């Protein structure tokens, strides 16, 4: 949970703060309201029946186990790919939490903005590898739908024990002119 912060490390090694690394581009803010009732009934359709067919292939490149991978723009936790799972599959013996938070990330490969569902994998102690915390569009727990500061496993069958987090693409948006 401490990475991406250490750009400042060299800054803080000596009190006179010489910055050694470049400043990352500003990600375009996309406002995104979720209707308390409205969105939740929507959520279940993501879970069952509707997915009989193959998921749409998304053009993407880079290392999915790297914290800076485009899908992880609002994730906070261990990347399941480093724990025996992948960006869309939980490690063996853990349970997918159906209720989770949502983020929207820009895919550098095709410039589109995708809706990412950060389902947690639950039922075992923390995976402990590839901790990654990025807060694009992150909201406080009193606006839970986009909050990564909450243990969403507590809504899963396995309850509290948090193992790792997925980054599942569940929607796509019109590429707004940047």
């Amino acid at each position, binding site marked *: 949970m401490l990475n991406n912060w*250490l750009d400042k490390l060299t800054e803080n090694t000596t009190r006179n703060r010489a910055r050694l690394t470049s400043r990352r581009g500003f990600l375009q803010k996309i406002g995104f309201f979720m209707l308390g009732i409205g969105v939740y009934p929507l959520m279940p359709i993501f879970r069952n029946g509707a997915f009989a067919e193959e998921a749409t292939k998304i053009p993407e490149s880079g290392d999915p186990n790297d914290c800076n991978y485009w899908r992880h723009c609002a994730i906070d936790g261990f990347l399941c790919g480093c724990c025996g799972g992948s960006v869309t599959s939980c490690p063996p013996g853990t349970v997918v939490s159906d209720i989770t938070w949502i983020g929207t990330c820009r895919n550098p490969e095709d410039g589109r903005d995708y809706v990412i569902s950060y389902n947690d994998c639950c039922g075992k102690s923390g995976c402990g590898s590839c901790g990654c915390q990025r807060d694009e569009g992150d909201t406080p727990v009193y606006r*839970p739908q986009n909050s990564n500061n*909450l243990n969403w496993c507590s809504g899963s069958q396995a309850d509290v024990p948090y193992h790792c987090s997925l980054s599942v693409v569940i929607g796509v948006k019109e590429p707004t002119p940047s």
Partner: protein
Amino acid sequence: MSSIFTSLGASLLLIISNVAIAENFSPEKFVPEKASTEILPENTGQEWFWSYGFRMPSAADGQAFLFDEHGKRLGQLSTGFWFNNLINAKSRNEIITAETYFSRGTRGERTDIVSVYNARSLTHKKEIIIPPKRMNGVKNNGLFALTDDERFALVVNYTPAQSISIVDLDRGEFVEEVETPGCSVIYGAGKRNFYAICGNGSFMQIKLAEDGTVETRKRSEKLFNAVDDFLSIAASRIGNTWYFVSRQYNVYAIRMDGDDIELENKWSLVTDEERADNWTIAGLDHTAAHEASNQLFVLMHQGEAHQFEEPGTEVWVFDASTGEKQQQIVLEEMSLGMKVSQTEAPRLYTLNIHIPMPALFAAWIFITEGESEIMKSVRQRMSAYDATNGEHLFFSDLIPTGGMVMSVQPW
């Protein structure tokens, strides 16, 4: 304990050979030492402080560590799964926590409790069972609070249905659960009043009767823009006013006093130049207040907008009423959170990220092998500063390996 000795068999032989014969070192005269258990000395103002949290990834074994005024270990509490909150109820001479347990560690039946520890002996006194719904937050703020008279404890729930459990600490009983749809974290507002923040920018007042049952629930009008300038839940209280920092780096002073709630004041943490120079709020537990001097402390750093929860590099000190910046403390080590003690000579405690090697070594590893390599050696410890002038007093003992802690807090 079964009768231990008989079953041990006669196979081993004791020969206490030639035990010493010299003044009081003769076996008859030699008086063995005796093991005992410490009790904390009475706290008459010593600047002790806690550091605690869920010990991720070993989140089944949450801990709270107590440090003395020199940053040395004084004691410890083992506090269960995904540990979030500890409150020192000074009038009760008790440490109160909210804890969660599973019958088989990470599986089986869940039990949530409010636990009560004796504040001198750090022994577990009693537990009060509550509905197994306690919210597990990454930030420890606003999830657990006592009424100002320390009689009732309130626990914020999330399943994801939102509600609050009320516990009577005097009678040691769960009182009731109250639904708070659309609203969550809570802030104390007098003997029998609390306010929760709602998703649309309003607050929900929760008024308790004398016996702790809920008398009324009332929604206030909107006090902040919940989309563009939402309030961080890590707020600090001076008197009846809670000071929130917001996503656009403003301070919202919200007075919560019984039935009245109003936005008393709003000012920007940063000047236009500072905003242009990318100064933003930072860290998780990023505000503190010193009531006597009416000062607000905020953890800051330079970074992009989406890095507003990454560790802070400075603590800015403001007059809470005027918003005038009085001090800019450059931290010895980047920090996740901080708090200030309420003594006359107050101390600023920070929860540091510590790399246990000379700074140049760390910089070299960072440059040659990147962030993930340096992360392998990251440890945690606290710093204590003189809150009046920012002088660094000491680094505490390291937080032991075993998982992360997320809060630092005066005794």
